[in-house]
């Protein structure tokens, strides 16, 4: 999350609604370690990344829903995960993201 603190701070001060997605767990081969983070604001601006570019598009959609609903949840992307999302990691690993509003 270190890399996106500047953007988070700026958006927060501007009164923007923001959702933060953090990698909390990785199984198998995954490009980014736990702690990798990306954030999306209500205008759809993006900071940071959580994979090698494989799932970021889907995370934006997820994050905008979280901004709407105020929910917090774990979202999983993986090679074998064919139920929830049509996107996955080409490397064959699975990543678990925790997505929540920046209201803390």
């Amino acid at each position: 999350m270190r890399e996106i603190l500047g953007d988070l701070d700026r958006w927060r001060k501007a009164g923007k609604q923001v959702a933060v997605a953090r990698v909390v767990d990785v199984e198998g081969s995954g490009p980014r370690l736990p702690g990798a983070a990306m954030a999306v604001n209500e205008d759809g601006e993006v900071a940071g990344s959580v994979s090698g570019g494989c799932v970021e598009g889907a995370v934006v959609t997820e994050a905008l829903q979280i901004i709407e609903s105020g929910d917090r949840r774990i979202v999983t992307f993986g090679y074998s995960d064919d139920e929830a999302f049509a996107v996955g990691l080409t490397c064959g690993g699975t990543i678990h993201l925790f997505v929540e509003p920046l209201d803390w």
Partner: protein
Amino acid sequence: MTAIFEVLRDAIGSEEPVALATVVEGPGVGGKLLVRPDEEPIGSLGDPDLDRVVARDALGELAAGTTGVRHYGTQGQANEHDVAVFVESFAPPPQLLVFGAVDFTGALARVGKVLGYRVTVCDAREVFATKARFPFADEVVVDWPHRLLERVGDQLGPRDAVCVLTHDPKFDVPAVIAALRTDVGYLGAMGSRRTTDDRNRRLREEGVTDEQLARVMGPIGLDLGARTPEETAVSIMAEVIATRTGRQAPSLRDAAGPIH
């Protein structure tokens, strides 16, 4: 009350160690506890006993520089799985100490910064050891390297690196001996094979054992065929990474097994 985000931002900004614990599954999802050494934790995960146990565990994660999910009972019981807590450590950046204000030093400081190191350049010659020559260094120290190590050596650990670039035995030998007394994870010394043989002989004369010498990467760097200061800096920092991860550093194409 100051928001947890602001305390986290300020702690990271001033390179203070800090850990952020977040309930990611179970009751009180989203609950946060911010933990710093020698300070009262801020926030709550929803239960005072859970807070106490997680604060203790988070300090352990912080000391080890690790980040991950831990499971607890609702009141912090071990071996239960009611609550999943993500503990993210923000350890201060690892240190790169570069001894010798030579041609290669500027490039090494720059590549070290790219990799997230806090870079200190140290040379006893004040004409060469200037901030103007090494704008990328966080700190430029005019002193004998071994004297700097006597001051800061006990703060060095497995994540940190010492690179001795002086290739002058007068500076090198005491610097390497002082670095061997620390727990630094990487210790490299620049020089041709001849310089290296000569330095090793001098180190042995000073009582350095073969086991200690085995810690010294000299000649410094991976065998990339590097020529310029920038290429040499990449070869050195690549060796620092490979030493930390315990890899032999062949090309991925020529190896098997997991990439990460």
